[in-house]
């Protein structure tokens, strides 16, 4: 039998590219000059100069430096566009640095988009809430409808992707940078995000494909290409779908993967300091744990992890509530502080808009509203009414941001972790060790809770990675066909391991850039398709109010 050169090409190509680049980096002359006086030392010296100049870089550290540099160059170019300071267009040149308000394009895009969806859909985030809870509880489940999972299961899958380190570490960072006021803006962002989630997940259902084997494929890439083709702008839709898919694959390697490993490791290390010298062990364990599921096909571990996520969310919220109760007398003052700091922050340059930017950015990282990723999971739900699943989806940002992120923020504010003058806290805030900050704040209030938190963090990180590997794999299959999945899985595992050894922030920023970047093609397409969602919602809502839908007891 002939060996087919194309069959294994993507797998071999992927592996080859990775190993060749690693080997190339390794094989370079290792005579770094600690003092980069010699111009011919070139790139080596540059890299060495950035790291600790006294220690010659060897092995993994060397590679890490190289990889980090490559990402830095990329981020700089992409970041220039995405985080373009829109406010600079309207700023007089004479304005002092102190009063400078920076509004990154990506954040403005998300604010405008989510605000538009909320108003255009008639505040569906508020008026649809009760019905959404009833649907999720199974009152309207109809097992005969096309799809793969129940409403509750679809929400669980989408939540396991969003509830991650963003809720624990990201929020702590936001509050320590933006002050307590950031809490209010995060809640606002979460509320607006509910409408965005509703719109994109309704579209995810509307334009999903049901295959001959009963499997369902959907998500932003499908509604962008099919929906916009329906509107007569097919080529634009197709282009947006491809851009989205490419960014989603990038995001699944970065924010949905390496970032999770890296940040969960930091969090666990805060509890078990001995791990600091064996970071690669954690990376290896994670790689194996993810690998046996996505390649080995032993699904029970992932199933268990995803099923425990709602429970862990509950434990986390209860613990936070307990801490709030212990400090019940301070709650009014804390709320007053959050309100006053939201509009007139004392610490942050840029005033209310500055805090708003911090709050919105963190909320978007955490709940992914407007990003379009969750539509992939929600498309799998069994229903014949797209708007019904959209309503379920709007609970995502509510649970993720309005509840869980707010709990973290309140704990950080009430325990004083955000402005504690203790050098240990100052150090954590300066180093942006968000997870460690939350761990200290909660462990200080409930002795031993840091261990529970460490377990929760690992679990959240793991389930987020599993869910994102699904998002990434769907997008990869959209780009290269179903049979290319194996090459994706291998690259995914490489990034799991990279996440543990790379301490470099550039690699992590890359993931954030990719995930925020998805909002550009997604919100653009969703705004164009919004009238279709509105019609879908109007029809559904009228029938629901008329009592046309039978309810399960």
């Amino acid at each position, binding site marked *: 039998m002939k060996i087919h050169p194309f069959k294994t090409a*993507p797998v071999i190509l992927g592996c080859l590219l990775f190993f060749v680049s690693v080997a190339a980096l390794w094989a370079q002359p290792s005579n770094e000059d600690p003092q980069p006086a010699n111009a011919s030392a070139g790139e080596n010296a540059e890299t060495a100069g950035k790291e600790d100049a006294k220690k010659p870089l060897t092995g993994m550290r060397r590679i890490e430096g190289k990889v980090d540099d490559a990402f830095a160059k990329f981020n700089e170019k992409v970041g220039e566009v995405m985080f373009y300071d829109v406010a600079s267009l309207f700023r007089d040149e004479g304005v002092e640095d102190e009063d400078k308000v920076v509004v990154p394009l990506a954040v403005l895009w998300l604010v405008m988009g989510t605000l538009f969806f909320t108003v255009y859909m008639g505040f569906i985030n508020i008026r649809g809430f009760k019905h959404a809870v009833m649907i999720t509880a199974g009152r309207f489940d109809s097992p005969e409808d096309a799809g793969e999972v129940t409403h509750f299961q*679809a929400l669980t899958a989408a939540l396991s992707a969003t509830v991650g380190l963003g809720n624990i570490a990201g929020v702590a960072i936001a509050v320590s940078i933006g002050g307590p006021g950031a809490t209010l803006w995060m809640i606002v962002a979460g509320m607006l995000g509910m409408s965005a989630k509703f719109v994109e997940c309704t579209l995810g259902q509307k334009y999903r494909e049901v295959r*001959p*084997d009963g499997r369902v494929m959907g998500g932003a890439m499908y509604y962008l290409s099919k929906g916009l083709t329906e509107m007569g702008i097919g080529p634009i839709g197709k282009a947006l779908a491809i851009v989205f898919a490419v960014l989603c694959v990038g995001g699944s390697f970065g924010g949905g993967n390496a970032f999770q490993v890296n940040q969960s490791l930091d969090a666990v290390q805060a509890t078990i300091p001995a791990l600091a010298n064996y970071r690669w062990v954690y990376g290896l364990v994670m790689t194996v744990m993810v690998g046996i599921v996505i390649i080995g096909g032993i*699904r029970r571990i992932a199933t268990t992890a995803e099923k425990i996520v709602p429970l862990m969310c509950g434990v986390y919220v209860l613990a936070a509530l307990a801490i709030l109760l212990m400090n019940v007398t301070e709650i009014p003052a804390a709320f007053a502080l959050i309100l006053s700091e939201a509009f007139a922050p004392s610490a942050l340059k840029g005033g209310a808009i500055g805090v708003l930017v911090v709050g919105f950015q963190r909320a978007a990282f955490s709940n992914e509203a407007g990003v379009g990723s969750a539509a992939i999971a929600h498309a799998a739900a069994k229903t014949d009414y797209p708007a019904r699943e959209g309503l379920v989806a709007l609970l995502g940002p509510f649970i993720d941001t309005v509840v869980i992120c707010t709990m973290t923020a309140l704990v950080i504010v009430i325990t004083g972790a955000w402005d504690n003058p203790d050098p240990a806290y100052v150090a954590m805030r300066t180093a942006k060790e968000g997870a460690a900050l939350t761990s200290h704040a909660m462990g200080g209030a409930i002795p031993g809770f840091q261990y529970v938190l460490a377990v929760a963090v690992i679990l959240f990180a793991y389930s987020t990675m599993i869910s994102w590997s699904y998002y990434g794999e769907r997008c990869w299959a959209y780009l290269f066909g179903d*049979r290319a999945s194996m090459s994706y899985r291998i690259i995914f595992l490489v990034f799991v391991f990279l996440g543990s050894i790379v301490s470099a922030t550039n690699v992590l920023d890359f993931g954030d850039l990719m995930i925020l970047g998805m909002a550009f093609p997604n919100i653009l397409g969703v705004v164009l398709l919004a009238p279709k969602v509105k019609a879908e919602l109007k029809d559904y809502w009228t029938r629901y109010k008329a009592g046309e839908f039978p309810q399960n007891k």
Partner: protein
Amino acid sequence: MSWLPKKKVVVPVDFSGESEHSIAVALELVADPSELYLVHVLFPLDNVSPGVLLGDMTDEKRAEAVRDSFDKLLQQLGVTGVNIEVLFGKPGLEVAEYAARIGADLIAIPSHGYDGVTRLLLGSVAERVIRHAECSVLVLRRSDAE
């Protein structure tokens, strides 16, 4: 290869418009519909989708759904008495191996598939069938080809 009726003809079906065309052509090649073997190949189930992890999606359910899809298609075409088979694995290879297993005389397959870069990277199913088949392969020009 003679143009006389074939004993056993295998037709890979992917439920696109092309499949209907190839079933019609293959029916003209056989003396009786019972000599026609329609095959659909499914990729193995992934390990991370909500349907697999939280729902109850299994390969058995998928095979059953494909058989239902076959029933619908055949009813629509007004065809009865053909054989249907659901296989798992890589489409090109599975079709070729299945044909060899049942001792088919011919595989009739539409030439449609991927275009552009994907085609370059992965090749088409028809190409694979030709490479692996032990019997003759009839590649049908896609009906929308110029």
